[in-house]
């Protein structure tokens, strides 16, 4: 069953694996042959697959950092500005007193850090994800899917490689 995104279907070969080591073998062999744009589906993140794909660290952390720092600055900025905007002198104490404002700044650090992290995942998944690629419901259950973008000239050897690695099903998607 194909539930790719709307629009044009990406040409390529989709293989399903039940054995994780077979899928990893296939990924390594494909990468060795210069296929870099693989899409691998799995029901959970498996380290073996991540290693075989040689993934770089997600840039999500940058968003978390920027969100957190923005929250911290906003927390101190808001409390200090609002205190100075309508100064109430009580007992000769400091108008903009930093220690109690740490609580507000801390909470906003966490709040904006968390929200920007989740926003980053949504953005990066859309921006860095590939569209129009076939999917099978078994991939959220107990199978691993490997999609190899390939034109009609490359599809034959790729299919053969996937079958010999141990794919239980191989399907070709034409453009």
């Amino acid at each position, binding site marked *: 069953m194909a539930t790719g995104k709307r629009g044009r279907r990406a040409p390529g070969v989709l293989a399903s694996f039940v054995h994780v080591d077979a899928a990893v073998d296939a990924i390594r062999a494909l990468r060795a042959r210069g296929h870099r744009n693989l899409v691998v589906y799995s029901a959970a993140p498996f380290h073996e697959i991540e290693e075989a794909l040689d993934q770089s660290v*997600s840039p999500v952390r940058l968003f978390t950092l920027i969100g957190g720092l923005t929250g911290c600055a906003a927390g101190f900025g808001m409390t200090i500005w609002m205190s100075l905007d309508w100064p109430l002198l009580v007992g000769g104490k400091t108008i903009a007193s930093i220690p109690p404002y740490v609580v507000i700044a801390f909470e906003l650090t966490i709040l904006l*850090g968390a929200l920007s992290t989740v926003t980053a995942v949504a953005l990066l998944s859309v921006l860095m994800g590939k569209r129009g690629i076939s999917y099978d419901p078994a991939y959220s259950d107990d199978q691993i899917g490997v999609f190899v973008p390939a034109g009609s000239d490359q599809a034959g050897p790729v299919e053969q490689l996937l079958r010999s690695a141990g794919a239980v099903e191989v399907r070709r998607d034409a453009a």
Partner: protein
Amino acid sequence: MAVVAPPSRAIRPELVINQTHAAVTRDVVATLEPASRGYLLLLGLAVAMFLGGLTTFLILVKDGLGHAGYTPPAFWSVYITTFVFWIGIGHAGTLISAILFLFRSPWRTAVYRSTEAMTVFAVMTAALFPIIHIGRQWVFYWLLPYPNQRWLWPNFKSPLIWDVFAISTYFTVSSTFLVFGLIPDVAAVRDKVTGWRKQVYTLASAGWQGTDNQWRHYSRAYLYLAALATPLVLSVHSVVSWDFAASIVPGWHGTIFAPYFVAGAIYSGLGMVITLLVPLRRTLRIEHMITDYHFDNLAKLTLLTGSILFYAYGMEYFVGWYSGSTFEQTTFYRRAFGSMWWAGWTMIICNAFVSQLLWFRKIRTNLTALFVISIFINLGMWFERFVIIVSSLSNDYIPWAWSNANITWADWGILLGSFGWFAMWFLLFAKSFPIVAIQEIKEMIPLPRKRVGGQH
């Protein structure tokens, strides 16, 4: 022929009994099947309790807070007690879902989804109480820093404003953490169901397909969310404790309040986790996923936090005596031997003493005993907040103004209504979304391999 790697070689067998990836999806999706009569009965009871609470609330809105048992000088009473109680309940959920995730504790996997849901619904329940308590609910937004007619801003030096920020952040971050964690599992359900349910889950799964790119960002983000939620949970009950500790009321003005409250919060939450999970695993038939081993670990955490609480109770009395302040000494004397002695001893017996039964493994693995103990914990922790709040306020510096608590039908109505509201959401969640984290359980179960002991 390929064989499945024996589970015992990769994971401890007590964590997941006899499971394959397909069986995990099947068993968890089965929990979403049409409800049993027992479930519907429980849901009906919860809704009835909630409606009782709602009626009480509407009467309070119409007539004013006079119906509630506010007795001068104790203007914080059952509602603030119950607010602190529910906020505390949430803490165990975050401890299990975030802190134990950072500690890489594998046993959290089976129970964290339900505890995280408990957190969100407990905070949702707690958030109602300041609104109920302020009396004029229609101006609750005065608590927020918004530009008003006279350009006046909230007093950020007040712990009550810190609390507004702490609670709203806690609610937002916990719900984000819950929803974010649910996405891959909702996608797994989407791929198993049909008809209108498929459409609903397709929408809720936000286009999740489990691609390597999605997992790469997701795994990192989950780690950072856990890292952000961990200090947050410690801060929230610290801030709640400062609502009390930053004042000079005898019995409140203690430096131990923040750690004392955090330990108590986690202890109370663990009590509620056990109260919920014992019947839930049976109703949803997931005994092979949430095992005695999980309860044993939950009980050990309960014992740890209960013992910290035991120490804090002792230290509170010591500090009261050692302060040399007559007011402090009188307050603590009256907690044990004054007119509210019954509440004071309920708190000490249920929390400090009952938790010590969990030193025994036989009790930790006996679910009936654990369930009964968890009820005592819930009771004891409600009374702890009641004692701290009401006994201190009603016996402060001016003896002629001393009074006793006067709990009325309006207090009971709202208290029971809050349990109904909480249970209603929890039960609806358990039937609508995977209550056991499919994806994380699968992470622990090794996938089949071609090459096992040379077999092909």
